[in-house]
């Protein structure tokens, strides 16, 4: 009986050791942190990564605008980005979150204005250009506003075309 008791104790100890070893090894290998990356609160300012050239500025501008609009709507930047990918995804989004087109337009304009503020603060946009840009953005319709978020470079290209002879000046305004 003592032999059986010893064997039983040994078996239980082996089970405890094996279980703890497995759990410990998986914890040490990062088992508790193997989760999707957390998305950032869109209402918190996101630092601009020293943009260089028109394309980089356009990218940062779009991301800032997405953050601003998402903050207004109370959704994540990522959810809004997917929503604006196609007209169908936009329709699904407005239905799911019960948002009217007018509310969406307001939010996107607010986002674009925040992007102008962020660009100005980051030194990527001159105050001389920021003022007229804000005035323009307050008036544009929803579809164009979405197009601007999706392809901010077109906005900057248009600005370039609009300024025409003052292209040299624009090069100075956009570092």
């Amino acid at each position, binding site marked *: 009986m003592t032999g059986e008791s010893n064997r039983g*104790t040994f078996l239980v100890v082996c089970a405890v050791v094996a279980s703890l070893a497995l*759990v410990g090894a*998986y914890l040490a290998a990062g088992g508790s942190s193997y989760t*999707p990356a957390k998305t950032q609160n869109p209402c918190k300012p996101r630092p601009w990564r020293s943009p260089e050239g028109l394309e980089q500025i356009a*990218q940062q501008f*779009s991301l800032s605008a997405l953050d601003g609009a998402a903050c207004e709507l109370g959704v994540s930047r990522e959810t809004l980005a997917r929503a604006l*990918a196609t007209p169908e995804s936009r329709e699904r989004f407005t239905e799911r979150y019960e948002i009217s087109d007018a509310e969406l337009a307001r939010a996107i304009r607010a986002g674009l204005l925040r992007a102008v503020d962020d660009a100005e603060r980051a030194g990527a946009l001159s105050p001389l250009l920021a003022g007229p840009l804000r005035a323009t953005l307050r008036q544009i319709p929803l579809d164009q506003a979405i197009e601007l978020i999706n392809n901010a470079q077109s906005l900057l290209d248009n600005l370039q075309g609009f300024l025409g002879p003052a292209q040299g000046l624009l090069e100075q305004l956009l570092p």
Partner: protein
Amino acid sequence: MSAPRPRLTALAVAVGLVLADSSIVVLALPEIYRDLDTSVAGVTWVLVSFNLVMALAAVPAAHLARRIGPGRAAAIGLAVFAGAGLACGLSDELSTLIAARCVQALGGAAAVTAVLELLPATVGSERRAVAIWATAGATGAALGPAVGGLLTELVSWQSIFLIQAPLAIAAGIPVLAVARHEAATGIVATELRETGRPHLLANLALALVSAAIAAALFLLVLLLIEGWRLSPIGAAIVVSAMPLAALLGARLGPAAGSARARAAAGAILVAGGLGGLALLPKAEVVLTLPPQLLVGVGLALVLSALTETALAGRAPQAIHGGWTISARHAGVAIGLIALTPLFTADIAQQREDAIDAGTAVVLDSRVAPLLKLELAQRIEDRLEGERGKVPTIGPAFEPLPEDPGDRADTILLREELQDQLDRGATHAFSPSFGLGALIGLLALIPIGLARRVDL
């Protein structure tokens, strides 16, 4: 009457076949879901209904076996099981499939409890009979998902049920000789003495441990197929590690220690294995093998030890065996009913989180803006196409850009995005595996409280 050896094999096959049915459809559930155009909650009842009816019918079926004779009860039970299996395989609606599963469980309950009355006469020892009965049941339950997955992929989900009919009939042939003997002589070869009430603590521990094992099998299969996108046959190969480990555990046998020690060690191993599954550090199949090894060895130790304990010194064996069957299947059913809503809510949330994290990767990537926009549209299309599931994201990146720089950035982006989706899918199962581990550990309370569990 037939020779003991073929009869012993037939009786063990009968027990393994019936108890495999509590888990055999796990890998077929996605196929049944699509084929019968039903809901996730509805298709879960294909599994739950069988276990619930087994839990409710096992003890009454054991009483029936004592009244009409175990030979006749086993023969009738196996015939009903085979017939209902055919009905399951021919079902084209969820309601008829669930109804047939309930009938199948009734036949199964009669067969399994009656076999326990027949085994001692076949092997010459009550203790050995109980050990064979428990091992056959544990092996069947562990093998179920792997066999079901293979059949689903190689043939169809219907074949899982259709193949059971000839097997049940083959297992019933040696039993018919006993039934004929009972009918001819009027002698019912059952134990007449009645000793002891059902072993409450052993049966409670059996229920808890069965709920934990059901969680391990059910959730692991879903993780592999729905989360990591393995085919049913691939998942079947992976989860076959568990029954192989169970065979290893079964070899330890009574020599490894007292029944209480084996039960405690088994419950700890099951909980440890589930703890490992809750903490998977990467979405890699090979990492599921050590936890499966622990669960497999653990289930063999704990199920056989607790079954022996519940039956030790008690008569009639069929009635007390019925209680163990009832406890095991009630545990499986309760485990599934309790874990399904938790798991469903978790996977929905984790899918959203993973998709958000993946979108963040795309937005913050170095890929050119217009390519980024195009990719976002393709990814959105894939998400919409696989609504409710973790999507396979690779095709959204095809064809790759021709520019070498864009190509390298896109490949990197695809890998990062897939990593986020894998993280989400794997993490979605963690709370449910963790709860399963906790339930396994809870079984230690009745095991510890049982004073007279040593055989």
